[in-house]
C-alpha cells in the first residue's frame, strides 16, 4: 500500500471516530477501540510540560482498557448524571493529520483537533493534539492507543470524552 493510501485509511478512521461522537453513536464509537486499548489525557505540570507518567503523575483521564470507555457510555446512556442531563452539541474538527511511523504494531498518527461544544446557548471549545496508535484488525483498523494533549486545560465547568 502506498503511504498516501495508508494515510487516507488513518484519516478515515479519525474522521469516523469524530462523527460517532458528534452524532452520539456511542456503541459505534466503542467498537473503534480494541478491548485492551489505552486512552490517556495527560494533565499539565506547568505552562509547558504535560505529565508523562500516568502511574506516578496526575492525568485528566487514564484508562488502560476499553472498560473505562464503556463505563462512560453507560453513564451517558443512563441519563441519570446531572452533567449529562443536557448533552452539548459538539463539533470535532481534525486537521494536520500526519502519518508518523508505520511499524509491525500499526500506524502512529498525529493530528490537531478542536471541539466546539454548545449547550444552553453557551459555546465553549477545547483544543489540542491527538496521538494515535492504530492497529490492523481483520476487516478494519482499530484504535489501540489514543493520547489527547489538551492545550486549553483551564476547563469551562467540566468535560467528558465526547468534548475532546
Amino acid at each position, binding site marked *: 500500500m502506498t503511504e498516501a493510501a495508508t494515510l487516507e485509511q488513518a484519516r478515515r478512521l479519525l474522521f469516523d471516530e469524530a462523527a460517532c461522537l458528534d452524532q452520539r453513536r456511542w456503541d459505534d464509537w466503542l467498537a473503534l477501540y480494541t478491548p485492551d486499548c489505552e486512552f490517556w*489525557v*495527560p*494533565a*499539565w*505540570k*506547568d*505552562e509547558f510540560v504535560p*505529565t508523562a507518567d*500516568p*502511574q*506516578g*503523575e*496526575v*492525568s*485528566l*483521564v*487514564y484508562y*488502560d*482498557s476499553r*472498560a473505562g470507555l464503556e*463505563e*462512560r457510555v*453507560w*453513564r451517558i446512556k*443512563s441519563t*441519570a*448524571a*446531572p*452533567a449529562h*442531563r443536557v448533552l452539548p452539541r459538539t463539533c470535532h474538527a481534525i486537521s494536520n493529520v500526519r502519518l508518523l511511523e508505520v511499524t509491525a504494531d500499526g500506524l502512529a498518527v498525529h493530528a490537531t483537533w478542536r471541539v466546539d461544544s454548545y449547550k444552553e446557548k453557551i459555546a465553549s471549545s477545547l483544543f489540542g493534539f491527538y496521538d494515535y496508535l492504530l492497529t490492523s484488525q481483520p476487516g478494519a483498523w482499530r484504535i489501540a492507543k489514543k493520547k489527547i494533549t489538551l492545550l486549553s*486545560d*483551564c*476547563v*469551562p*465547568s*467540566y*468535560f*467528558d470524552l465526547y468534548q*475532546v
Partner: protein
Amino acid sequence: MDMRVTETGHTALTDPGRYFIDEPQAFNVHRDLFRDQALFELEMAHVFEAGWVFLCHESQLPNPHDFYTTQLGRTPVVVLRGEDGALRGFVNACPHRGTRLYTARHGTAQVQMCPYHAWCFDSAGHCVKIKDQSQAGYAPGFDGERHDLTPLAHLTSYQGFVFGALRADVPALADYLGDTRFFIDTFAEQSAQGMEILPGEVTYVYRGNWKLQVENTMDIYHLTTVHSTFAKIVQQRGEREASAAGADKVKAVNLGALSGLQAGTYTFPHGHTVFWGSDPLRENRALWAMRDDLLTRGVDAHKVEWMFRPRVLNFFPNIQFVDSACMQLRVIRPLAVDRTEMTMFCLAPRGEPREGRRRRLRQYEDFFNASGIATPDDVACYEDIHAGGLAHANSEWIQGFSRGMQYVVDGPDSHAREIGIRPLESCSGVEVQDETVFRGFYREWRRRLEAATHD
C-alpha cells in the same frame, strides 16, 4: 416574605446580620449572599484579604530560588524560596510601576527582572538593581527609600501547608487552625517523610458563587442522588471482578457500602468545619500497604484510626482537604459573584509504594477531576442552583440549613473527647447527612463582615 434584607437594598452592607436568621429553631441564609455583586467585593476585602489564606504546599517549591505564584484575594502573590532555604511571600508586582513580575505558575529564578524597566529582584525579594540608576536625576532621598518587593504581613507553614496574610492583625496561624490541626496531621503524618503534591494540577471555572463549593464539600446529603451513576459504576466494577470478568483496579469509594455506618461533623472556631465517616473497605485504600509502617513508626493509634476514615476538612475561607478514597486538596478562587475558579491537587504520602500510587491516581481521576465521573455532576448542580434559585429568587431565604438540627450538641461529642479536640458544635450518629455543619462557616463569614462594617 421577611423584609429584613430587602429594606436595605443592594447598595450598602450596613448590617451583615440582616442576611442571616440564626435562632434556636431556625438558621437561614439569604440568597443575596450568592448573587450580590457589592457583597462579593466586601468578601474579597474582608474575608480573603483580611485573614489567613492558603497559598501553596512546600513540596511545590522544594529548592533554593524556586518560586510559586498564586492569589490572595485580588492580590497576585509570589512565594519565594531564598538562597537560605527560607520561604517568603510578596506581592507579585514591581514596586516601580506595578508590573506583575513572576508570570509563570512556578519555576526557578535566582534573579527576576521586571520586563518593563529591568529593575531586578533576588529570591529574597530584595531589589538588587535599578537600571541606569546613575545620572538618572533621582532626588537624594531616593537612595534612602525601600525598593524591595512588598512582603506579605505573614507567611507561615503548618505541616508543609503554606498560609499567608496581607494584614498584620490576624491570629497566630496555630491559633487560627486550632484543633483542626489534629485532622491536618492525619493527612501529613501518613509518611515519615511528609507528604507531597503530585505533578499535574487541574483547573476549572464554574458559573456560580464560590460558597456553593464550600457547602458542597461538606454536604453528604447530595451523594446518593448526584453521584448515583458513580456509585453504580463502582458496584458494576465489583460485580465484574466477582465474576472474574476483569479485576477492579481502581477500588473507588463504594457509596453503596456506607449505609448504616457512623459519621459526624464538627464546627471549629474561625469557620473551619470537618466531616468524618466510616470506611468498611479500608483495605482498598492506597494507604493500607503502609499501615504497619505507621504503627511501628509510633504514630498515635488514634491518628492512624482516623487516617482510614473518610474525612473532609473545610478551612475558612478557601481550601478543602478531602480523603475519601484518595487525598485531594481543592483551592477555591472566587473570580466574580457568579464565577469561581477551582484548582485541584492530588496529595500523597512521600515514599508510597508504586502500586499504591497508581491506585491513588486512578481513584483521584475517577472522582475528582473536572473530566471525571463525579465532580462534573457537582459542578452541573452548582450551575443549576445558580440558574434556578439564586439569580431570580423564588423566595428570599434558602431552606438548606436545617437538616440534622435536632442532633447537634454544643461542644465535643464522645468521638471528639476521645482524641482531645474541642469543636464548638458536634453532630454524630448513623448516616449523618446534616446541614448544620455549614453554619460554622456562615457565622465566621458574618463575624468578619460585621467586624469590617464596625471598623
